[in-house]
């Protein structure tokens, strides 16, 4: 077996195991940490297929950003002795069915799709091509979606500040 | 104001006060019930304005308890030792002055802790130096603790 195959299976196992742990853990912070490992595993896969930019973005946005945010909010709201309640069995069954259904559909699509190997790999995703595409306004440029998303994020930020900055409670002294 | 003036000032308000000219301070002894109005008057009156309570302590005399207030006026620079005689030695009670001089809050807690003097209306009268479950009041003359104290 090739080295890359070994690494792939190791990373894939890590991802699957930690994804399962993340949804089954009763302690909320542990679940967040398991999620972190699953996301880091995804970044690992991206590194393996030489999608360096995507991998780094995965690490920055998901592992470094989202998970830190989740952990931060857990730190603010929950106490160390708290445990999550066990969901009732109906919920478990429903989500299990949904999850398995999703897996089945994905597997069906993957197994039935004919992957034709292409002679050329198209554009090599170097840093400069990504940058030019991202800020390009010609054909295939992404500057408009890019700016729209940034405005969306700005609106979300303003909203978050408005919600968070309540009227200060009257001074205690 | 000199000692004579202070003496007159206090006697006007508390006729039964006993005044002694000490070597440093005028020492005035008053009954414990009179302390709160007199203390307020001593601080707020412009001619006395005793605003600095630099020492508050209690003394356990054989037949009574005494609380001693050492007062000073930062404006007039005169000083006074005001003593309150509490008749009951076993269960002494006196009005607090911690609303007049804030420093009294901790000092009164200490006096309560060590002498068992109850300061009425004190916002937070608890043991200060000793543990909460300590029995007795160690600075009293009849306090006996065979374990922790060395007999002379």
């Amino acid at each position, binding site marked *: 077996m090739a080295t890359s195959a070994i690494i792939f299976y190791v990373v894939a196992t890590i991802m699957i195991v930690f994804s399962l742990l993340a949804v089954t853990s009763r302690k909320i912070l542990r679940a967040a940490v398991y999620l972190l490992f699953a996301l880091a595993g995804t970044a690992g896969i991206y590194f393996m297929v030489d999608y360096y930019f995507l991998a*780094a973005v995965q690490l*920055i946005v998901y592992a470094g950003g989202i998970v*830190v945010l989740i952990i931060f909010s857990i730190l603010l709201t929950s106490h160390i002795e708290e445990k999550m309640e066990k969901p009732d069995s109906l919920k478990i069954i429903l989500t299990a069915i949904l999850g398995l259904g999703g897996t089945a559909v994905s597997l069906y699509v993957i197994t039935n799709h004919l992957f034709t190997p292409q002679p050329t790999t198209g554009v090599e995703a170097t840093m400069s091509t990504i940058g030019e595409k991202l800020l390009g306004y010609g054909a295939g440029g992404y500057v408009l979606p890019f700016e729209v998303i940034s405005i969306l994020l700005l609106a979300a930020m303003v909203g978050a500040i408005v919600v968070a900055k309540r009227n200060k409670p009257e001074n205690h002294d | 104001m000199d000692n004579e003036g202070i003496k007159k000032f206090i006697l006007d308000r508390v006729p039964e006060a006993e005044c002694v000219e000490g070597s440093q301070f005028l020492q005035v002894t008053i009954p414990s019930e009179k302390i709160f109005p007199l203390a307020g008057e001593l601080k707020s009156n412009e001619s006395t304005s005793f605003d600095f309570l630099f020492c508050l302590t209690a003394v356990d005399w054989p037949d009574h308890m005494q609380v001693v207030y050492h007062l000073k006026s930062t404006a007039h620079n005169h000083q006074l030792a005001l003593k309150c005689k509490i008749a009951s030695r076993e269960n002494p009670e006196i009005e607090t002055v911690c609303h007049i001089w804030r420093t009294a809050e901790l000092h009164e807690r200490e006096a309560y802790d060590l002498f068992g003097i109850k300061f009425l209306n004190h916002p937070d009268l608890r043991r200060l130096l000793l543990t909460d479950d300590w029995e007795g009041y160690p600075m009293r003359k009849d306090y006996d603790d065979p374990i922790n104290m060395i007999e002379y």
Partner: protein
Amino acid sequence: MNWLYDFNYLTRSIHESLAETFEPATVTIVEMALAGLCFMILFALLGLVLVYAERKVSAFFQQRLGPMRVGKWGTAQTLADVIKLLMKEPLINKNADRFLFNLAPYIIMIASFMAMASLPFAKGLQALDFDIGLLYISAVSSLGVIGILLAGWSSDNKYSLIGAMRSGAQIISYELSVGLSLLTIVVLTGSLQLSTIVESQANGWWIFKGHIPAVVAFIIFLIASTAETNRGPFDLAEAESELTAGFHTEYSGLKFAFFFLAEFANMFIVAAIGATVFLGGWMPFHIGGWEGFNNIMDYVPPLFWFFGKVSFLIFMMMWFRWTFPRLRIDQLLTLEWKYLLPVNLMNIVLMAFLSLMGWHF
């Protein structure tokens, strides 16, 4: 002696000799293990040397001698401390979340290992040379904060929790400034690849070539990176006079040593990034046009240049720590959001303008 100047010779010969005896899959695994071993040794050595250096530097600033008893000039002091830490009892609070408590130091360690992997130590001596090198480093170094947050939360101590919260707010804020100050130079280099950044400084380091904006970026980088490594005067997360020891209050023995080691490793990493981006990395001190001078400088091996620059930056960070009082948490955030970040943004625009006009050297 060629390998001292270009490590490609050395790595190639190792690779070839391995390929002769093993099949390709084994070769890859053996090479990975070798690289890992090298980094592990480097990590341990860094810990030993930097702890000793910190002690001696602090002693120098405080007009005392520092460790003098264990070994000549106290050089074996850190080793003695390692033995002491290994023999200490690992204590865990009764209510602590044992799994996360044990995991936290490793996350911090792993984050610093990952960041270290892409540092260019010398020509050809770089484990990972991505074309997104700088982005990669800022990505993995942002993982370390998770370890701190976990450590603070899982030890079931209010001081630790406050320390973790402070640290989280601090690192997330200052990451922006570190990233932007590095981007200021990226505007000039046009590449995120660390080896390219080093190569681009062959005729002068960016801090000299980039005019005033480069100097401003360098100063911001120094401040922000000191803050990101949780070192004084930004050591609010551990602030011993306020929070006893902050997020690692409850740690002892080896796990405490991990936090300690990671702190020094992180210091090394940010110093190395600063040296690479602003001070030319392993590139000798060159002045464009002075051929004779440049040739003399080339005789000094790149490793020496790299570690020399890194030591200089580390010395600067130690200098900060041993002279400045600690900031308060709101002042810390004010400094970042109201001063460093706007200045940084202005600076980056100015640099882009300079680069556009071609006014840099």
